[in-house]
């Protein structure tokens, strides 16, 4: 009995720290940061109006003001919508990206990961496949033609790029001989030729680039935002959603951004490994390792934002062509190359 | 490893052939696809040559299981593969001239025939549940597509849909059967399953597994009451595809079912369940052949008639399967399996011949081939009429065609298997054969003794003529010199099956 309580209590503590404090915190900040950063890149001022008296904090209060405003808005359901599917969709959009964080190790050992299930990446891939349901069910349930078009585009785009993500991870699994994220990170602690950290980005550079772009496409952010394409189909699959339901879609997207950054940091940037520093334990070193993991995550989040506000939107046929005719063959070639190189350097 | 790879050379050739034809079709951009058919036919001939080469190679340990015991490619399996490759060759030959007439000159036809034959070959060589399932799926998926190949024809769409839905249902049953067998034994290789079950009282899982496997093979073999799809699919699917279904699928499914019920679930493994299984199979055999023949009687559409005839023949084949099951573990099982293979071979030849004639009549996308269309064929296309006559006589089992000796051997082996249990089955089968003569001979009457009623557009081409000629030759060859063929198969079957039975013994 005691061990059960211990297990549940410890799990709750980790969930609170990782999910509620870190993920939700970062996702909330991102709602403001994203707008501020776009304003910076487009030479605007950006959100700066929310205030408490004289206190403005450069618009930082928008991230509190927006949810408060949304929760007082009308919970709109279009006529002839399928009521239960319409309500289900936001859940499916936001819950799978949240549950992904259960297997992401924020530091060495079992203490910094919610669940040490060895299936790691398989779990993540399974959940990210569920992500497409949120958009598609929402689109179908809305009974709106723009939504349906958006939903169709979303489903085709997401499943197309999922293939690329899946195939690119094969090379990583071949090198690190593990599908558990912790296992992959531990293997990345090696040093090659005496100076090069054995990170995924070093050993699988092609896979890293393809993974990054495919993940951005998977989260439907610009330049892969044809499914939402405001200028063509208004807002795509979440056109009819308002108030908190819409907020959940938006929140799901920001959580996905954080999730992609975490997975990318774990698989390709060495996770919590500090380059050239052996993992020996000790509180200070562990704290530094957690810190550097979070730094890597922020770097990847910044990269995704920079991509979003730099590149113009792809036309839909270009999106599909990029996925199937460029990324997929390159991923297959990458697997073959990895296999041959591993065969040639067998001893190493 | 190298030995294993060399042994599966015929399968490799067919697999590469399928990929090659598929890619050639999309990469060449030529609109006339007859050359693809010629390449496919040449490829099948090459694979047959490789079978011949392997047959003579004593340095390869042919009778031993390969790839960790998931398949075996001994002499018996080589013969079965040769039969399947011949079927593939004939189907290709009759498609070459037929396809352009139908407006379905699409290269995928040949690739899919290759993949279907590959699946069949995998099916007859499988000694493991997983390879059995893999072979069945490779075969079935290709044939689902082939059945609906004439995309613009509603009949073909119906055929494809029916075959797909019921085929998927049958596959599901097979998977459940395998899963229950695995649950009961923890083993997937046939011999291991038999070993694990031997001498134990069958549990509920085993009963479910046997029941599901019987039903699954019932679907694939078109046993009554699992035969509902047969007439519509045979009628709707294009003639060469129906030939592939009638000849190829039946051959592969019977051999696979034989192997499952001989090596995985022999009487020793079923224990007290054995009499029940025997009764179920016996009843299935009787109603299958009786219902098939009775329903074939009123058919005026040649394809539907052949479909019900296929059902009836499934009943005869089931008697052979029961005999093989009954003597599992004894040296005699080799003879029974050999007789089954011979029967399948002559049945395949007759069906291929009949459907080659149906293809011959299918000029300009003609759909329905009723008896009226056959009237006066002897005047317009003497070779076609002669081949059709031979095929009908062979199906009816009239000497000196191959069909007579096929039936003779099968029934003889069934009687030899157990004097006490099989006579009534064989008597019923012979009576049924007598009934069937009526509808087979009616085709002859229309072909030779009636005047042409309506204009029929014939498909003309050298490949089809070649196929007709070869089929006529083979049917007569087997019919006139049967002993050579039978001895070869029995000899081939003996070591394979006895070896399996020794490995299955506890």
């Amino acid at each position: 009995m005691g061990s059960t309580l211990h297990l549940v209590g410890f799990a709750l503590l980790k969930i609170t720290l990782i999910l509620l404090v870190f993920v939700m915190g970062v996702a909330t900040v991102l709602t403001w940061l994203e707008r501020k950063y776009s304003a910076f890149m487009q030479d605007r001022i950006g959100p700066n109006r929310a205030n408490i008296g004289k206190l403005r904090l450069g618009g930082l209060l928008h991230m509190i003001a927006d949810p408060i405003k949304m929760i007082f808005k009308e919970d709109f359901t279009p006529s002839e919508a399928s009521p239960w599917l319409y309500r289900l969709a936001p859940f499916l959009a936001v819950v799978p990206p949240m549950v992904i964080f259960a297997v992401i190790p924020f530091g060495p050992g079992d203490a910094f990961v919610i669940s040490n299930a060895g299936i790691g990446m398989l779990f993540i891939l399974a959940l990210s496949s569920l992500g497409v349901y949120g958009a598609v069910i929402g689109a179908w349930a809305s009974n709106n033609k723009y939504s349906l078009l958006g939903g169709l585009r979303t489903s085709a785009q997401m499943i197309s790029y999922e293939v690329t993500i899946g195939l690119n991870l094969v090379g990583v699994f071949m090198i690190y001989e593990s599908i558990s994220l912790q296992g992959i990170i531990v293997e990345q602690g090696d040093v090659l030729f005496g100076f090069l950290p054995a990170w995924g980005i070093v050993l699988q550079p092609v896979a890293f680039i393809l993974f990054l772009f495919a993940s951005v496409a998977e989260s439907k952010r610009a330049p892969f935002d044809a499914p939402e394409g405001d200028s063509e189909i208004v807002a795509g699959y979440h056109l009819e959603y308002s108030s908190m339901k819409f907020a959940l879609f938006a929140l799901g997207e920001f959580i996905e951004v954080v999730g992609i950054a975490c997975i990318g940091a774990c698989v390709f940037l060495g996770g919590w490994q500090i380059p050239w520093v052996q993992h020996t334990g000790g509180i200070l070193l562990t704290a530094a390792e957690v810190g550097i993991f979070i730094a890597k995550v922020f770097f990847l989040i910044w990269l995704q934002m920079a991509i979003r506000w730099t590149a113009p939107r792809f036309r839909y046929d270009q999106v599909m062509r990029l996925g199937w005719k460029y990324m997929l063959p390159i991923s297959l070639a990458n697997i073959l190359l990895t296999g041959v190189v591993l065969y040639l350097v067998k001893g190493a | 490893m190298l030995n294993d790879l060399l042994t599966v050379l015929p399968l490799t050739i067919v697999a590469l052939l399928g990929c090659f034809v598929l890619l050639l079709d999309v990469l060449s951009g030529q609109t006339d696809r007859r050359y693809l058919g010629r390449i496919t036919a040449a490829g099948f001939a090459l694979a047959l040559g490789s079978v011949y080469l392997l047959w003579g190679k004593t340095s390869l340990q042919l009778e031993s299981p390969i790839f960790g015991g998931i398949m075996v490619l001994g002499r018996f399996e080589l013969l079965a593969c040769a039969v399947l490759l011949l079927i593939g060759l004939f189907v290709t030959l009759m498609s070459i001239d037929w396809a352009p007439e139908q407006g379905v000159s699409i290269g995928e036809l040949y690739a899919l025939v290759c993949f279907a034959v590959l699946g069949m070959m995998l099916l007859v060589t499988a000694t493991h549940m997983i390879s059995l399932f893999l072979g069945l799926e490779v075969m079935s998926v290709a044939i689902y597509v082939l059945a609906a190949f004439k995309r613009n024809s509603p009949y073909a769409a119906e055929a494809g849909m029916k075959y797909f839905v019921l085929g998927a249902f049958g596959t599901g049953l097979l998977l459940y059967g395998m899963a229950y067998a695995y649950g009961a034994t923890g083993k997937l290789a046939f011999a291991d399953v038999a070993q694990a079950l031997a001498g134990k009282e069958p549990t509920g899982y085993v009963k479910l597994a046997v029941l599901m496997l019987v039903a699954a093979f019932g679907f694939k073999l078109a046993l009554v009451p699992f035969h509902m799809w047969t007439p519509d699919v045979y009628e709707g699917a294009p003639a060469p595809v129906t030939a592939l279904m009638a000849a190829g699928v039946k051959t592969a499914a019977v051999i696979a079912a034989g192997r499952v019920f001989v090596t995985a679930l022999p009487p020793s493994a079923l224990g007290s369940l054995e009499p029940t299984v025997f009764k179920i199979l016996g009843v299935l055999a009787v109603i299958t052949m009786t219902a098939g023949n009775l329903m074939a009687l009123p058919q005026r559409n040649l394809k539907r008639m052949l479909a019900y005839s296929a059902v009836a023949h499934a009943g005869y084949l089931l008697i052979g399967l029961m005999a093989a099951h009954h003597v599992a573990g004894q040296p005699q099982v080799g003879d029974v399996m050999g007789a089954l293979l011979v029967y399948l071979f002559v049945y395949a030849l007759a069906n291929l011949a009949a459907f080659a004639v149906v293809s011959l009549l299918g000029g300009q996308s003609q759909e329905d081939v009723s008896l009226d269309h056959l009237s006066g064929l002897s005047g317009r296309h003497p070779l076609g009429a002669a081949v059709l006559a031979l095929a009908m006589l062979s199906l009816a089992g009239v000497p000196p065609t191959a069909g007579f000796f096929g039936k003779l051997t099968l029934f003889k082996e069934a009687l030899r298997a157990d004097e006490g249990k099989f006579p009534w089955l064989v008597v019923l089968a012979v009576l049924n054969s007598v009934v069937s003569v009526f509808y087979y001979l009616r085709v002859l009457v229309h072909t030779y003794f009636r005047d042409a009623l309506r204009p029929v557009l014939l498909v003309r081409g050298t490949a089809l003529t070649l196929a007709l000629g070869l089929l006529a030759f083979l049917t007569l060859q087997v019919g006139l010199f049967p002993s050579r063929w039978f001895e070869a198969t029995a000899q081939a079957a003996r070591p394979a099956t006895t070896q399996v039975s020794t490995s299955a013994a506890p």
Partner: protein
Amino acid sequence: MGAHYVPYVPIAILLLLACGMMAAILVINSLIGPKPRSVLHNAPFECGVEPIGSARSRYSVNFYLVGIFFIVFDIEAVFLYPWAVLYRSFLADPSFAFAAVAEMFVFVGILVVGLVYVWKRGALDWT
């Protein structure tokens, strides 16, 4: 407590917590938000024009094709995972090393045949 499902207990808690939080947010929202006023107000948005017909109509066959290709290629990728994880231990066995590499080429080769086929058939074109 059985050891094998211990790692999944936190996942289940996380799942419940996430669903509960989101449900709570939506319930609060629907309680304190304003209520719909008229039939027209509830019409689906079509740039101010009254909607003609249902949105749930037939759509381009290309989407179905992408669905089928996804199943083919993604399942193949999943089939590669167990092999990929074991690949280096295959290589460590000298008698099996070459077979492991050859198998990779066969498997990926079959995938490539499929890809070339759908590509040249024009199934990947969206114009």
